[in-house]
């Protein structure tokens, strides 16, 4: 057995007393591509940051090539041969390819000036190793993201890194670019470089990785060869479930109760967008909650964005209220009776300096105004009604929304959409980051509107929320809707099974 390149054991780390890593370990062999998987918050980034010297560990041991090391800064980590490529590129897009490759390590002439001829030669050599040829004097930013990523990798490789850390390198790449990247990774591996690969796209791991470490709640819960495992086992490990139970659940008969629902309001057929949504088939009826389930990156939010007119639809059809529509902006979607409560409250939801009142009526303004003048008396009446109905805790309606708690901000935003009396309400992680009390309140508000005939498309990472809340659950994988589960009858295990199982197995269409 070869000696591991890196061995981290018993790593602990707490932030302000709250443990982020409890008992994490990681072992990487020389010349292997090793995957690190886990849900958000499992501790992957913390572990990587300890490895790269960004954080100091509280306890545990790090062996590098068999010797204990203490990496105190990213510079230390680079010194021993650890290079990191972050999700956001850290190169300089305005400078040339050569300049980026040699940045910080420029070859010098006798006079101390930069030896550009040598620099070009080095850059050419680095890139040729991966079989790519670029105009070295063009600005890096003029190349596609994939090429920029490859240059970043080339740069790291040229520093003779022994371990290359890649954090979500494929999230912005298309399929062909991903293939190129994998080719480069295999070339690096052949040269003896180890790679630590973090990705939410589990299928990719089977294409390119040798080993995999699974983390959950700050602990390393499994380490195995990729050949000895399956996607279902990985997911079960990430979620802390028993894989056999999930396998068994896949064979459970699902009920097909449809009595609650009214006419179909939204129908998507083969919908694709320019943003990783490949084929969405979906039907939402009035008075029905349809859940969208899937792993991170499976296309749940992308589905919502395509329906709401935010992303360009590149194929398929969308019918709303029985008519074919093309929604090219949120305004179109709103006019068609669709509302979308986004996942990122801060970036895509609140206008922080405006008041609760102004935030709540933002989408409603056209209906509140005559000749361009806002009917403030009516506005106040409506807002007061929502503050009461939704239990929004605010000093008064003129308080800036940024001063409210997350749960109350979320209720204001929910009110923004409910005020429109939408026919379809899309909710993207509606209860994330809100406290338990607000969460229950929000769920019951939604349930009440569904009873009144509102259709709801619910995106949630919480299985419980989907299973208890949704009448149907559409499961997405890699930007495609692969199956539909009908409630009652969905169990957590059967849902996980549906999320994990490859789409090309016999009972794909069985539930439909």
């Amino acid at each position, binding site marked *: 057995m070869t000696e591991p390149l890196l061995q981290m054991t018993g790593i602990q780390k707490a932030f302000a007393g709250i443990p982020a890593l409890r008992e994490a370990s990681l072992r990487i062999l020389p010349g292997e591509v090793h995957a690190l998987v886990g849900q958000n918050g499992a501790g992957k980034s913390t572990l990587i940051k300890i490895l790269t010297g960004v954080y100091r560990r509280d306890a545990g041991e790090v062996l590098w090539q068999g010797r204990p090391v203490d990496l105190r800064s990213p510079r230390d980590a680079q010194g021993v041969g650890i290079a990191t490529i972050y999700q956001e590129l850290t190169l300089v897009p305005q400078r040339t390819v050569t300049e980026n490759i040699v940045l910080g390590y420029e070859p010098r002439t006798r006079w101390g000036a930069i030896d550009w001829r040598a620099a070009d030669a080095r850059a050419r050599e680095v890139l040729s190793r991966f079989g790519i040829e670029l105009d070295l004097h063009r600005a890096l930013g003029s190349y596609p993201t994939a090429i920029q990523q490859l240059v970043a990798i080339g740069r790291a490789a040229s520093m003779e890194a022994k371990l290359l850390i890649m954090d979500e390198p494929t999230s912005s790449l298309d399929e062909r670019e991903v293939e190129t990247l994998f080719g480069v990774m295999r070339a690096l591996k052949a040269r003896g470089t180890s790679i630590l690969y973090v990705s939410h796209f589990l299928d990719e791991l089977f294409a390119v990785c040798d080993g995999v470490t699974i983390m959950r709640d700050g602990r390393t819960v499994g380490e195995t060869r990729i050949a000895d495992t399956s996607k279902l086992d990985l997911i079960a490990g990430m979620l802390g479930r028993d894989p056999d139970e999930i396998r068994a659940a896949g064979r459970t008969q699902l009920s097909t109760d449809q009595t609650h629902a009214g006419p179909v309001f939204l129908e998507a057929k083969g919908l694709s967008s320019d943003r990783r949504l490949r084929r969405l088939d979906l039907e939402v009826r009035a008075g029905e909650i349809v859940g969208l389930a899937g792993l991170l990156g499976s296309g749940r939010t992308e589905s919502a964005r395509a329906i*709401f007119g*935010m992303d360009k639809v590149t194929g398929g059809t969308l019918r709303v209220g029985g008519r074919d529509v093309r929604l090219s902006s*949120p*305004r179109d979607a*709103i006019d068609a009776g669709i509302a*979308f409560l*986004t996942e990122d409250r801060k*970036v*895509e*939801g*609140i*206008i*922080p*300096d*405006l008041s609760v009142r*102004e935030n709540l009526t*933002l*989408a409603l*303004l*056209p209906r*509140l*105004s005559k000749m*361009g*003048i*806002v009917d*403030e008396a009516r506005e106040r009446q409506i807002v007061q009604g929502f503050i009461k109905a939704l239990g929004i*805790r*605010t*000093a*008064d309606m003129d*308080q*800036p929304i940024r*001063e*409210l*708690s*997350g*749960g*109350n901000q979320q209720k204001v935003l929910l009110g*923004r959409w409910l005020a429109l009396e939408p026919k379809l309400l899309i909710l993207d992680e509606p209860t994330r*980051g*809100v*406290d*338990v*009390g*607000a969460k229950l309140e929000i769920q019951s508000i939604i349930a009440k509107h569904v009873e009144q005939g509102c259709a709801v498309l619910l995106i949630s990472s919480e299985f419980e929320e989907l299973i208890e809340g949704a009448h149907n659950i559409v499961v997405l994988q890699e930007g495609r809707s692969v199956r539909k589960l009908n409630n009652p009858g969905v169990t957590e295990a059967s849902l996980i099974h549906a999320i994990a199982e490859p789409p090309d197995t016999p009972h794909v269409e069985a539930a439909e």
Partner: protein
Amino acid sequence: MSEPSSLTGRGLGGVGEAPAPRRSRVNRRFLGLVVALAALILLNVLLTPNFLAVQTLAVNVSQVSTVAIVALGMTLVIATGGVDLSVGAVMAVSGALAPLIFGSAWGLANPGLGLLAAIVLPLLVAMCCGLFNGTLVSFLGVQPIIATLILFISGRGVAQVLTNGNLQTFSNPSFTWLGTGRILGLPVQGWIAILLTLVVALIVRKTIYGRYLLSVGGNERAAALAGTPVAKVKIATYAIASTFAGLAGLIDVAINSASDAARVGNLMELDAIAAAVVGGAALSGGRAPILGTLLGAIFIQLVGYTLIANGVPDEATFIVTAAIIVIAVYLQDSRRRT
């Protein structure tokens, strides 16, 4: 992202405490400006000879009005998170056009219509400049500073070409009334500035446009997702700013009975930005303190006047103005952090 528990804690705490500090914060800023202005006036009453004379008032009002009018539009643009560098050049364009129109053969033959055209046409041209700026910013995604730099450079060039680079003097009492007339002892342009301030303040507060303006500046992405017509709002805002600049250009030319394309509106963009910032606008957008802008313009004007009237050299006033802006920005910043 904060933990849910801490968010709740803050929210619950906010229920009891929030209203008092918030109200006083909005007012404190405005009150501070009012107090500073009052102190400055008091200082002048004590120091400056003849400060309370009608003539002093008239001089100050006639000097500050154009700045205030341009600053109103600038405040709106700044509220979208942008900036308009072209206002001075647009003033020069409209200032150059007016005498060409009422001084043309047609204008002289039809004095009434000529006068009307000499006011309306330059304003329309100015508005088109704003439509151009707004289109660049919202449809082509050009940075506002660059987009408006185009007219900043070319606008004054156009004005100089129109006038062959000559100083145009004219005698047209009806037109110059715009700059030299008095109503109830106060210069006409003072009344115009006050009227526009009130109108714009009402627009910001009462109309759907005003609400959209603040939401676009406050969080453009969120606003767009709520169905706000972001592009329309921005284009309208740049058009308003340019139209106001056009009006200021007419007033400037009327005051002097002469149009000098090289001088009209020179450095006006900076004066207007200064007035807006002192008045409480935030360059990051999302706030449009219209009354504050008027007071800001008056404050800067009075500080300059005080220094000059008391024998401080012209050049030194620039330094003091700069210091005022630094203080205003500091206050702005410290407010953001609280």
